[in-house]
């Protein structure tokens, strides 16, 4: 595991928040994922060694929580809310719009490597449905037109790189 020095110091700091090291499992997984982009195969063993656990204890956790990814994803992660309030206002169409824009399917990295589109469950912003999170940013009232607009923005940024 090749983590940035900042990540390592954050890891050491966050462990002090808890009376038992095991509690730091989720924080460590978040920090590793933020650093690497996903959780590489040696994550369980690394975290287990750090927190004095067995690797299976960590793997059980990684696979329980959908936000943890064991595989790399596209450069941007588009998470469309699938749940009722968003669906009532067209969430499924929004999702299809993103898939179409990036010629991809749910859960897959788009051919240009730019995005992964996923469905997620209720994001607690149902009053501004349909909602979409792109990486850490919440976007509200994302109808097909807005999905197109957001996609164009991503593509434009990709071009600049």
């Amino acid at each position, binding site marked *: 595991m090749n983590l940035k020095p900042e990540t390592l110091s954050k890891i050491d700091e966050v462990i002090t928040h808890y009376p038992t090291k095991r509690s730091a499992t989720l924080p460590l997984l978040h920090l590793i994922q933020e650093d690497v982009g996903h959780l590489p195969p040696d994550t*369980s063993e690394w975290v287990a060694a750090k927190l004095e656990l*067995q*690797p*299976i*204890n960590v*793997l*059980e956790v990684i*696979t*329980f929580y959908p936000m943890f990814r064991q595989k790399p994803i596209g450069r941007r992660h588009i998470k469309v809310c699938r749940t009722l309030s968003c669906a009532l206002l067209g969430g499924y169409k929004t999702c299809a719009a993103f898939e179409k824009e990036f010629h991809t399917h749910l859960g897959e990295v788009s051919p240009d490597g730019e995005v992964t589109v996923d469905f997620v469950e209720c994001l607690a912003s149902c009053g501004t449905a349909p909602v979409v999170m792109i990486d850490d940013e919440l976007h509200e009232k994302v109808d097909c037109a807005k999905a197109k607009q957001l996609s164009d923005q991503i593509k434009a940024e990709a071009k600049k790189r």
Partner: protein
Amino acid sequence: MIAPAKPDLVTVNIDGQEIAVPKGTNVIEAARLVNVDVPHYCYHPKLSVVGNCRMCLIEMGMPAVDPATKAPIMDPATGKQKINWIPRPQIGCGTNVSPGLHVKTTSPMVKDAREGVMEFLLINHPLDCPICDQAGECKLQEQATGYGRGYSRFVEQKNVKPKRTQLGPRVTLDDERCILCSRCIRFSKEIAQDDVLGFVDRGSYSTLTCYPGKKLENNYSLNTVDICPVGALTSTDFRFKMRVWFLKQTNAIDTESSVGANTLVWSREGTIYRITPRRNDEVNDTWLADSARVLYKAVKAADRLAATETIEVLVARAAALFKSTPGAIAVVGSARSTVEEQFFTRHLATALKASAQLVSRVGQGDKLLISADRNPNVRGALVTGLIKTLPAQQLTDLAAQIDAGKIKVVVAINEDLAAAGLTAAQLAKVSIVYLGAHANATSAAAKVVFPTLTVFEKSGTYVNQQFRIQKTLKAVPAAAGATDDLVVLAQLVAAAGGAALPAELGLLWKVIAAEVPALATMTFANLPETGLVLDATPYAALPFVEGETLHYKPAQPAVAAATA
């Protein structure tokens, strides 16, 4: 013997039967005491309670009292105190008794709940019972008959999960059959202390897994097979070999160490197919080491000894040796022999005016069911008076006496003298009478060889590290050409001029009871299945090698040899 402290008793009512049970008992165990079966999967008496299968749902109520005055509220219809029944079913495994607790296990609510759980467990189950080797021991199959709906309403696609995964050298997993009860995970974590199993993914897609790159290969892995309530975990060795309902079960003892774990030997027509644990809450709970389960392979081992001459001829030859060298005979007995054999060994030594010695075997204790003392019956030799001090690992004295020409004949019982430190030259210098089941350097060098029996072919007793005397019974007939150790020993005692001793256990125990004060009140037939603890105080000063294991704490810290 010291009587255990009387536990606090609580009176409960189960399906109308009143019973007093110790505080802290759960409803499943309390019901068991009145012969009421509460079906369950995830609950195991020796593991933590998680309450996840929901099969043990029962209806529960408490006697009604006036909230203000705490006075009982009576039911005019019955004249008894009214019972406030909780409107939802409760889990029997997670509910501990409290005074006055009322339980129904057959009410419509309970029946309905069980039916529901059974249906849910079966919808994603492959229903491949005809080819599943848990058949006959499958709790799912058993309870589906008792509580199931009998037909399927599930027309959707079943979940697909991995089949036939090798979790380790001895255990095979079929995830589609797994009902996610987590018994195997809890066993690995809590008992074997080898936390390698877990669930990955979530919900109905949760899948039992061994951590990739690790193996379920600890010496207790097969216990997971024993406790898996369905056919998800199976023994790779036993898979599909024999349907269990054909097999005869015999109570026996694990002779690997002084723990004396209780076992069941499963056999058919003279062949043993497997060994499983037999519950003894004072010794091994419900567990057994994997290594104990393969010991039966000694019965049909290629190096089994078989006699080519009759026992009379062999005894005559031994008698001739005894007569030729009076006063120059040594007896090497065994801490692997049964109490009865050790008793005969003592008689033989006395008749031959020889000193008797034993060979000690020490290994690393595993803190669970294998102790540092790898002999099953050192304490039996103490109790029968065969030895007074603990044996050494090497027969150094005997070697010196042989070198000095003071010993001319050695009677070796179940012990390989070469393994105990005698050189080939020393073996060549003496005439050896050997009793044993398998060939070794000693049998090769012996003048007279009596092929005897493995533990599975005979009955007898052993005294474990707790000074608990326990019975093992004959599971299969003696191999051709082998004779019961007791028969051989009785004849050797007679040949050495000793008293006539009966080789039949019932009669023999009368003699033992008469001669060994510690065993004065015992008979073989009356010895309880879980054994009997003898008074250990006479031996308190001896430096036993055992460290702590399950249900055993040494009186004094184990000597360095045990942990070295």
